[in-house]
């Protein structure tokens, strides 16, 4: 009897797993390894410079650069179902407030993400400011 019960449980879990894999995985590779390894955006998407915001133009000029520089690698992703940007200095996702209306294409969203990230990183309220006060050595 015990053996029969075990067999039933095992076959059910395999069936559920197969169903999830078939539904959720997009590539054969992901199906094989049983996990999605995607980023939260297309990391290789090149920026459309015609969509640069006035703030970003001023930022690039102030820094003396010729283009978006490090911001070329910044894109809008998502975290817990909400649009968000990854802040590499704080090593975490920073969420876009729902009050900000976002456009319906990734290039425009990316420019907004870049602008918000610059404002966040340069703010005296950034988490690193407190860390710097606490741990600065020289």
């Amino acid at each position: 009897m015990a053996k029969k019960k075990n067999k039933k449980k095992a076959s059910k879990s395999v069936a559920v797993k197969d169903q999830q894999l078939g539904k959720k995985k997009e590539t054969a590779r992901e199906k094989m390894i049983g996990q999605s390894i995607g980023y939260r955006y297309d990391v290789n998407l090149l920026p459309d410079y015609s969509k640069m915001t006035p703030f970003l133009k001023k930022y690039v000029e102030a820094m003396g650069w010729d283009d978006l520089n490090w911001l070329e690698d910044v894109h809008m992703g998502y975290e817990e179902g909400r649009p968000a940007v990854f802040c590499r200095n704080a090593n975490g996702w920073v969420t876009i407030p729902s009050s900000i209306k976002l456009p319906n294409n990734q290039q425009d969203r990316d420019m907004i993400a870049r602008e918000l990230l610059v404002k966040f990183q340069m703010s005296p309220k950034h988490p690193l400011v407190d860390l710097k006060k606490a741990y600065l050595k020289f």
Partner: protein
Amino acid sequence: MANIKTVTKKTKAQAMGMHKEVLTGRTQQKFFNPDEAENFYYFGTYDVDFNKRTDLDVENMTAAEANKEIDNLMSQGYGTIVIKNPQGKHSIGVGILNKLNLIFEGSLGYFGIGSCDGPIVRINGRVGWSCAENLMAGKVVIEKNAGSCFGAAIRGGDLICKGSVGARTGIDMKGGTIIIGGDAGAFTGFMMQRGRIIILGDVGINLGDSMYDGTIFVGGEIGSYGSDAVDAELTKSDQDWLKRKLKVAEIGENFDVSKMKKIVAGKKLWNYDNLEPTEKKGAI
């Protein structure tokens, strides 16, 4: 690596077509403040003026003394600093997290311009191993050749060598752009995870070996492809971006970018979870 949860309800991000799955990571529940003041510099950095220029002769200084003096000059508002007689010193011009125009009149040794975030650096000579390691932002231009591990683990910014570079250029890079006017050595783009490498000349064996993601553009001959590096189609968007970038790099403005080869990750090595089933649980 991301875990998958069953999706029951459409979230805002899903409704916008940004993704289908739910990935969870290191959220800090931090929200942007849309009313944040317009500020272009990190809190606590120096307010420098590019038009305020000075020279610094480092011939009789150690690297640590020279780096401290650069910091001191920035605190006085100097935005353009010309370093005289660097004489191949190691670890010089490192840790600059400021807007700055820094010019070296000579060559640097190992680990020059490491861990910088923001400056524009020009080196009128050669550089040794691991130049601009961990660059976060800014622009670094080397007029002559560079050694091995050029731009190791850079996260952002533009790193330009007008001459040729050694082996393992862009090893472990996680963003930014590396541009080489000449040739590049073996294992270029080894284990790169993001970012872009442009090589106008030839490149050695094992190009893009074990690359996880990112893009490599090659104008010349390729010695051999590394494991999991595959050809991809060069799009119009790529060509426009290449033209723009080469103009920024002050090299190859007349280079025919339409004939460049584009190499990306084949993503066959995306199986770390099979190799390390316990470690993946702790990863993003």
